């Protein structure tokens, strides 16, 4: 037993019961220890502890570890972003102006730069939590970031190869993110893996795993998805049907088209105007239900049969109908308006335009239906230039961005970056509010102004800042949401300027 162990053992029990007895060696340390008088038990114990612990601390050279070191990182080709750009990123990683992080990432990647080393851990951590940012994060990690991620299983999304053991043994959450990642990289391998474990997965897991096939979806997935249409769990059947409707050339689409085709007749009415004659389906049979048709309408006021037709129409790419009828989209919509089942046709086509992201159809339908509201999803499908023209038109009629006005929700859902014209129109709207209600309803602006700040044309930021600052003087009376907005776009401006330099 070492000297120190003997001393601690005695100390643990207490020297009342057992005095310290050491047999020190005849070296310098031993000499010191023998000087401690035995008559003072406590003094001898504490004194010996002081001497021996200091002796050990001073004398024991740190140990050697001669195992081979892990492989170091390869040097990075891409240069690090500037120090100030790094500070901007650090600010966002702390949670400030976080909505601008995607823009920082894409712009820095486009400039051929990478994130600074010290910010790699929080950046990789952000990607772990926010899957939608992963793709952008990967572009600024550089060799160093990928090397670092390879050493932490939490960050495996950023590593070149995926470890399939995660699929076998990982937690539920891990397996979900593994499959999503695998679908992005090697959809066929992901399908093989899921098929091999499909029978053992719990119904809940099946329902959560299958929608991940949305990544890298192709016709190769069809037969597996077809088999999932017969699953015992409704959510699984639903997910399989949704995926199959998104597959061009899928048998499900074809079957649906075959069901709908005989129901619609394109003809001229007695006044020789184009009109659509609709025969409603008689029943919602097993085969239709298997293909995802819900037998019961979600809302009252819609007849069952019209509801079945509407759902089936919603699956078929709307581009089919001009070919089937020989009419233009405009003519088809007019034809629908003249028939008894107008709303089923318009609703079904609207769903289809959204599902198949058909901008032409969305544009035509939006002109028809926007008065009725609730059609932001059609707006989403419009080509960018049309989206902007649409909002500009609305703002021309009424510049207010009040929550009760139609322009408001379109501005909030126009996600991509705006061109100069739309940016200017929105800036003028802000100036309009500065001159009229002075942004007095704070609840209406906080949050919403961040949307605007993210999408405004960067070239217009300096003008917006100076005019809006002037229009909301003095600073002491400026609405907090506007002060925050000015800071927000100022930050964005500095951030982009620094990346460009």
């Amino acid at each position, binding site marked *: 037993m070492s000297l120190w162990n003997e001393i601690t053992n005695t*100390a643990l029990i207490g020297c009342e019961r057992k005095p310290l007895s050491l047999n020190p060696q005849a070296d310098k340390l031993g000499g010191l220890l023998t000087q401690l008088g035995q008559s003072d038990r*406590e003094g001898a114990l504490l004194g010996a502890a002081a001497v021996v612990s200091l002796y050990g601390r001073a004398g024991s050279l740190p140990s*050697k*570890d001669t195992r081979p070191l892990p492989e170091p990182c390869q040097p990075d080709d891409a240069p690090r972003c500037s120090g100030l750009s*790094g500070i901007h990123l650090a600010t966002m990683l702390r949670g400030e102006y976080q909505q601008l992080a995607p823009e920082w990432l894409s712009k820095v990647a486009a400039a051929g730069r990478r994130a600074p080393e010290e910010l790699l851990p929080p950046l990789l951590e952000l990607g772990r939590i926010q899957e939608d940012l992963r793709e952008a994060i990967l572009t600024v990690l550089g060799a160093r970031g990928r090397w670092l991620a390879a050493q932490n299983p939490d960050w495996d999304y950023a590593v070149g190869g995926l470890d399939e053991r995660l699929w076998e043994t990982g937690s539920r959450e891990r397996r979900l993110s593994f499959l999503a990642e695998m679908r992005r990289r090697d959809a066929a391998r992901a399908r093989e893996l899921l098929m091999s474990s499909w029978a053992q997965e719990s119904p809940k897991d099946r329902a959560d795993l299958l929608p991940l096939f949305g990544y890298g979806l192709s016709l190769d997935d069809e037969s597996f998805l077809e088999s999932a249409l017969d699953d015992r769990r409704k959510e699984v059947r639903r997910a399989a049907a949704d995926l199959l409707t998104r597959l061009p050339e899928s048998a499900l689409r074809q079957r649906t088209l075959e069901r709908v085709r005989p129901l619609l007749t394109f003809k001229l009415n007695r006044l020789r105007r184009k009109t659509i004659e609709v025969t409603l389906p008689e029943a919602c049979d097993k085969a239709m239900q298997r293909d995802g048709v819900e037998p019961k309408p979600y809302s009252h006021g819609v007849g069952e049969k019209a509801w079945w037709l509407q759902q089936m129409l919603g699956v078929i790419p709307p581009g089919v109908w001009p070919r089937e009828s020989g009419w233009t989209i405009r003519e088809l919509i007019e034809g629908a308006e003249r028939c008894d089942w107008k709303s089923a046709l318009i609703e079904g086509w609207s769903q289809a335009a959204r599902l198949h992201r058909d901008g032409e159809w969305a544009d035509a339908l939006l002109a028809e239906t926007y008065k009725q509201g609730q059609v932001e999803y059609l707006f989403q499908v419009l080509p960018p230039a049309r989206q902007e023209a649409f909002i500009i038109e609305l703002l021309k009629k009424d510049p207010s961005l009040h929550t009760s006005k139609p322009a408001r929700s379109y501005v909030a859902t126009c996600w991509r970056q705006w061109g100069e014209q739309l940016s200017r129109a929105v800036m003028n709207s802000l100036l309009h509010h500065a001159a009229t209600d002075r942004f007095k309803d704070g609840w209406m602006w906080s949050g919403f102004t961040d949307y605007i700040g993210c999408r405004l044309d960067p070239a217009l930021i300096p003008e917006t800042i100076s005019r809006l600052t002037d229009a909301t003087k003095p600073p002491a009376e400026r609405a907090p949401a506007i002060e925050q907005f000015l800071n927000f776009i100022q930050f964005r401006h500095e951030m982009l300027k620094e990346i460009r330099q």
Partner: protein
Amino acid sequence: MNWTAEQILALAPDAPSAKAGQGLATARKWQALGADEQAAWGLCQGSGKDPYQTQIDLTEPAFRCSCPSRKFPCKHGLGLFLLLATQPAAFKEKRPPDWVVEWVASRAKRAQQRVEKQVKVEAGEKTVDAAAQAKRAASRDAKVTTGLQELEVWLRDIARGGLAAVQSQPPNFWERTVARLVDAQAPGVARLVREMAGIPASGEGWEGRLLERLSRLYLLIEGFKRGADLPEAVQTDIRALIGWTQNQEELLRLDGMRDRWLVLGQRVEEEDRLRAHRIWLWGERSGRAALILHFAHGQQPLDASFVTGAVIDAELVYFPGAYPLRAIVKQRHGPTSSPDGISGYPKIADAHEAFTGAIAANPWLEKFPMPLLNVTPLRHGHEHSEMWFVRDAEGRVLRLAPRFESGWTMLALSGGREIDIFGEWDGDHLWPLSAFAENRFAKFR
């Protein structure tokens, strides 16, 4: 010196100040911006009627602003400094306005007065009542002596009854002793006891760790009892550890040591409402370490004039002791500059040898500064328990403190290669404060 935005933001007292400072780092928020060799200034419109006058003495840096904020430096000072670093062209004025000239002059005058005061004191112009002072000192000596006598009884009780019995003691077992030591005017010893309170519940090996601390305390009491029999430097160390403060004016009368001092790293530790701010310096010519120690109560600002990774040309006076480390700045010469390079211990064995020398001279030394050149950070462990190390070319390893949270940042900076790391060594663990990699200084949180 070219200040970087990172260095400036590191001066911010907290994250909200850093954010607000960034928001003000834009020419739109300022009027009459100007700068010369010595200072930078500008007017910033706040919520009040008159704009705030913000100015920076660039040589240190030192800040002054007419805003009412209690933060230091305030957001205006940080914003102005950041703006200077990122857009120097915006500072068009070259002639300082009166309010800048006055401030710079008053700073120079204060520095001058300090020197004159030293001269006066040296000339024997005693302004204090020596008799009253001696009486106070004697009374404190008596209090401390009684306090340490009581502490020795307490300590011997523990040794007699055994550490196992300590484990089942209620928290006030420690608190009572701490309170008595505070009353006995021995705050340093009180702190040592307070730090022991958590050890019995700290898991495997606790008895060894506690015994080590208790024995060090015993050594302190013994040393105090022997008093004048010990070398003077050791007596000074003992008195400093117990809690006697060194008269800094007396210190400033001593000759200092002039060097180019690299600011290696800083750490702030909070206890109760007192923040202890340690600033570690390394003399480029002397190869000596120095510790600048500041205490801030409650809302008091920390010293913002030391920028990690920068070099100050200054004369320092060391506090006396057997292994002098703590120092104060007697005088700064010239502006802050960038380091020529970094120096430190080329091998862990060298660093350890220096540490051995230090504790041989002062066995109560708690933090030893270790600038380590060419070490590789290493991580051992798996998902839920990991340990971090640094390893040198000979394969010697130092373990990092388990509570150190920036292991991944350190690994990211190194990329698995050798970098320079500065940290505080406490005899068991290293706590890294900064790293020098690929010609960049990075500090850890």
